[in-house]
């Protein structure tokens, strides 16, 4: 009686498996080969040693390629590709454009980043249309709002500074600041800005969480 693992058919099968397993990590390849060798050993102890029985064992194992495919999750995943992940970059780009607008200096770059971000939102496959509109309205508005705020703020500063050195009656010199910005206005603007920022953070987190939920697979129930 010949040991199963030295049977020509088995040796041929194991050689093919070793060849196919080169695309696995060395550890995975070693483990797969050891498992399959043990399978042949166990079948031998089970009394399956004839040529016909060994052919059946090999048939039932499947082709070396199919074993390696089963051991390579990346390859299996490639068969049913996930939709591309555009949501995280979209959120990042829209918020980056908003920050770039606030720097004034990088505003032109901000325009490009903003447009790319909007396109990414439009191309999103993981968000529902409601989530996409929320991304457009709350996050996409960030860049124009920040730009307008920067322009508005510089105009206001320019106006008040001009008015400060305006009045000088005959004889006496008194400086009165008139027509400037109402003292409560900066506070209101600041409150609105904080509220807007909080709204954006909340919406951005929800939108990202929605994508995360979609991507996560429950443990122990993976469909492969």
């Amino acid at each position, binding site marked *: 009686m010949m040991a199963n693992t030295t049977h020509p058919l088995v040796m041929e099968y194991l050689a093919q498996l070793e060849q196919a397993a080169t695309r696995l990590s060395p550890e995975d390849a070693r483990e797969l080969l050891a498992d399959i060798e*043990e399978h042949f050993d166990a079948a031998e102890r089970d009394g399956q040693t004839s040529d016909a029985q060994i052919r059946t064992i090999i048939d*039932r*194992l499947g082709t070396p390629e199919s074993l390696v495919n089963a051991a390579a999750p990346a390859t299996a995943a490639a068969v049913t590709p996930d939709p591309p992940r555009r949501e995280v970059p979209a959120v990042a780009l829209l918020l980056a454009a908003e920050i770039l607008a606030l720097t004034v200096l990088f505003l032109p770059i901000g325009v490009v980043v903003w447009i790319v971000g909007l396109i990414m939102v439009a191309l999103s496959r993981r968000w529902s249309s409601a989530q996409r509109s929320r991304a457009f309205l709350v996050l996409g508005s960030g860049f124009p709002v920040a730009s307008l705020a920067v322009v508005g703020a510089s105009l206001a500063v320019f106006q008040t500074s001009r008015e400060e050195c305006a009045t000088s009656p005959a004889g006496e010199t008194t400086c009165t600041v008139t027509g400037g910005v109402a003292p409560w206005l900066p506070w209101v603007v600041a409150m609105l800005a904080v509220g807007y920022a909080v709204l954006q953070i909340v919406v951005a987190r929800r939108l990202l969480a929605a994508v995360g939920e979609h991507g996560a697979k429950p443990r*122990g129930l993976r469909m492969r």
Partner: protein
Amino acid sequence: MGPEHEGRALAQLRRGTLESCVLALLADGERYGYDLVSELSEAGLVAGEGSVYPLLSRLRKDALVTTTWRESLSGPPRRYYALTPAGHRALADFRIAWGEFRTSVDQLLEGKARS
């Protein structure tokens, strides 16, 4: 429905349930890899027996099963597989999910058959 489509449906069902079937077989106690594979194969739950081994190593990496080497009277030591607490939980989750899933599919199929 042709036999070709039937085969494809069966292959998809096997792919989706094999992992949980392995967990279920281990629920009663530890088992030798070869016995596990033979049992799955006889039950018609797996197409290629060899694909069970990579699945077992993945379950071990995910800490759903543990392995122990045991001496055998005939030949080299054998590797036995057993469920971890996380494996038991995963199986319990599958039991619930499967019950609901099966009911939904059955209702749908029966509804379609009546109309």
